């Protein structure tokens, strides 16, 4: 198969198939080494990138990485592929596609028109030969906005998911962390809790807590309790006030099966949330992350970054309000250090944006990875420049329930101010009315309106007050 080989200075580099070229062309990361699919030398990696750069995009539909017959993710990608939209780039190789994306002429509207014609694997392929600055420069062109109560993703704006998790789902503790986040200008993407206990009863309890806070304080935002999607469906059936429906998804049918989901269940969840008519038109919230398929032993010999892009292929079928890659959560056997986490975060954001997803990123790491808060500052800043739709806001960057480090309310304030980014338009107005932010987005000292907000908020503490 001559298209999967290349001769450089007399050395012939042969690759088995498209999946092999893609895997070996991937910038180094521990998960691909663990899976046994990575390049065995730096030279082989670059040879694979050179080989990949010469492969026509038109080859991708002819070479599904996981068979159409055995994987519903492949079927979804192939069946929803828009050949008309693809025509614009049908003549290009992967290398030519990179140049096309970088060209001045390729504007946001061009990217939007092209997106339905792009398969996730094509986007993953081009990302592998791009430098970090390419991933930033091209992603920055794409403006993907979504609306529930607030509008997220507008150029010049940056939203934050307020994440007030608690190890026993203590309602007072969660409320206290929520108030802290609001007082720091966070929560315009969503106020979203990862429950410690994933039961229908617990979800309903947390959903009504958040609905109460949002309603009483008239916050232009939405809530989500990130339990299993089937529990959320049941909660909705029982009349729980669900704004966004959450689920973790991945790029192979088998991995999704290990999560206890399939496309049918996701459709059922979307229909149920839309029927509630609490906001929209977008109602879905997806989380992803490189390495999940290897972790579930369901990677089919495909590299983790390409599989991540395939997860986005599913996500876009559900017109989601939020999608984010939880980039460093999975651990060092998949992304070993700050360098690998930063690269993966930039790739994921780029691939998601090329598929017109409202991409956010949980800029994060665990304590057994070779990373620290400085690496998070780097990725946060880089993704801020790239136009990331939202980040996480965790009290002091320390999630006391999930035991990992993410970005804090202070970090949100830093990146917005450093890059002159504003909160979601509706939320920005609310923050100014409440005396949290001034017109330029700086935090205000305690004043009358802020005290009023604080008094109203503390009254919402379950049991009525602090005592």
């Amino acid at each position, binding site marked *: 198969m001559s298209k999967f080989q290349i001769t450089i200075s007399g050395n012939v580099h042969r690759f088995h198939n498209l999946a092999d070229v893609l895997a070996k062309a991937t910038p180094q990361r521990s998960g691909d080494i663990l899976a046994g699919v990575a390049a065995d030398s730096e030279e082989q990696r670059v040879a694979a990138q050179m080989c990949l750069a010469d492969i026509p995009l038109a080859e991708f539909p002819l070479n599904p990485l996981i068979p159409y017959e055995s994987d519903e993710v492949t079927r979804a990608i192939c069946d929803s592929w828009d050949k008309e939209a693809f025509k614009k780039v049908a003549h290009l190789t992967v290398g030519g596609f990179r140049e096309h994306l970088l060209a001045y002429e390729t504007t946001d509207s061009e990217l939007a028109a092209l997106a339905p014609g792009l398969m996730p694997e094509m986007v993953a392929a081009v990302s592998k030969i791009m430098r970090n600055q390419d991933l930033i420069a091209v992603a920055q062109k794409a403006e993907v906005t979504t609306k529930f109560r607030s509008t997220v993703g507008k150029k010049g704006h940056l939203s934050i998911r307020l994440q007030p998790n608690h190890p026993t789902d203590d309602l007072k503790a969660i409320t206290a962390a929520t108030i802290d986040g609001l007082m720091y200008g966070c929560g315009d993407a969503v106020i979203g809790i990862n429950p410690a206990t994933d039961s229908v009863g617990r979800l309903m309890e947390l959903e009504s807590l958040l609905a109460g806070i949002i309603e009483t304080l008239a916050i232009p935002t939405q809530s989500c309790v990130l339990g299993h999607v089937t529990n959320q469906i049941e909660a909705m059936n029982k009349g729980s006030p669900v704004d966004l429906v959450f689920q973790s998804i991945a790029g192979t049918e088998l991995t999704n099966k290990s999560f206890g989901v399939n496309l049918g269940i996701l459709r059922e969840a979307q229909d149920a949330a839309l029927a509630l008519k609490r906001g929209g038109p977008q109602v879905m919230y997806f989380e992803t992350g490189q390495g999940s398929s290897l972790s579930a032993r369901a990677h089919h010999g495909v590299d983790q970054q390409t599989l991540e892009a395939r997860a986005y292929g599913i996500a876009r079928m559900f017109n989601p309000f939020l999608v984010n890659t939880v980039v460093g959560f999975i651990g060092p056997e998949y992304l070993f250090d700050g360098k690998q986490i930063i690269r993966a975060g930039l790739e994921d954001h780029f691939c998601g944006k090329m598929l017109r997803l409202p991409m956010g990123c949980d800029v994060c790491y665990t*304590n057994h990875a070779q990373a620290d808060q400085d690496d998070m500052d780097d990725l946060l800043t880089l993704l801020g420049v790239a136009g990331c739709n939202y980040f996480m806001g965790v009290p*002091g960057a*320390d999630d006391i329930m999930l035991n990992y480090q993410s970005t804090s309310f202070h970090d949100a304030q830093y990146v917005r101010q450093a890059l002159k980014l504003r909160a979601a338009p509706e939320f920005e107005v609310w923050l100014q009315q409440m005396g949290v932010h001034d017109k330029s987005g700086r*935090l205000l000292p305690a004043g009358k309106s802020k005290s009023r907000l604080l008094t109203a908020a503390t009254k919402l503490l379950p049991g009525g007050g*602090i005592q």
Partner: protein
Amino acid sequence: MTIKPDSWESLRKLTHARIALGRSGNSVPTRELLDFRMAHSRARDSVWREVDFAPLGAVLISSGFSSIQVQSKCSGKQNFLLNPDLGRTLSDESQARLDADLGQSPVLDCVLVVADGLSANAVHTNASAFIEGFFQSMKGVQLGIGPVVLARYARVGLGDAIGFGLKAKSVIMLIGERPGLASSNSLSVYFTFDPKPGRTDADRNCISNIHDSGLQPKAAGNMAAFLVRTAIQRQLSGVDLKLEYDASKAIPSKS
């Protein structure tokens, strides 16, 4: 004074989350910055420190118990962090040591494994109190326990390989948890009846968060002994084993 304290500091008593930290400009005060870094440094040290089993071995000997040291197939910490499967498999040398020991041992009802996992500090700080509690609650119970196995570069699954290697009826593994910022020396206990390679979490019972400001190590040892006694009596472990644990009855009474 450029630090702006937050006017909702009173909320701090409701949660141990890092709220109402105050700020200067957009950023946390220096004290908070360094406190966070200190917590992270302890967690990192705990992951990367080599476990020292010598003090624990000495404690065991003075209490009348022998121990065997084993190692997974991992060659070092980095290799351990990068290859979870190797951490679930015994090295050839350790396998041979268990095989040799098997020749001399009577049938074991339960083997106790102490493992570094992701926190050597957890073992250094809390394992001996746990073991004291465990054997206190096993006193007078007619069960063959055998030598305590001390395992380096170990994941939870290594306990199954050890139990299987010693043909033990069950295995109880005390292992260092992945450190959080709040605690870098927390232990977990995993119990498996009929251990063998390929067991999953559904086949195990777990007690977690064992450290000085969580579940007290000695009390956890009492609790683990109760778990072992109950499971061996009922011949099962995992999701099918429901425990009604009463701490006041964990230690056999003196009368």
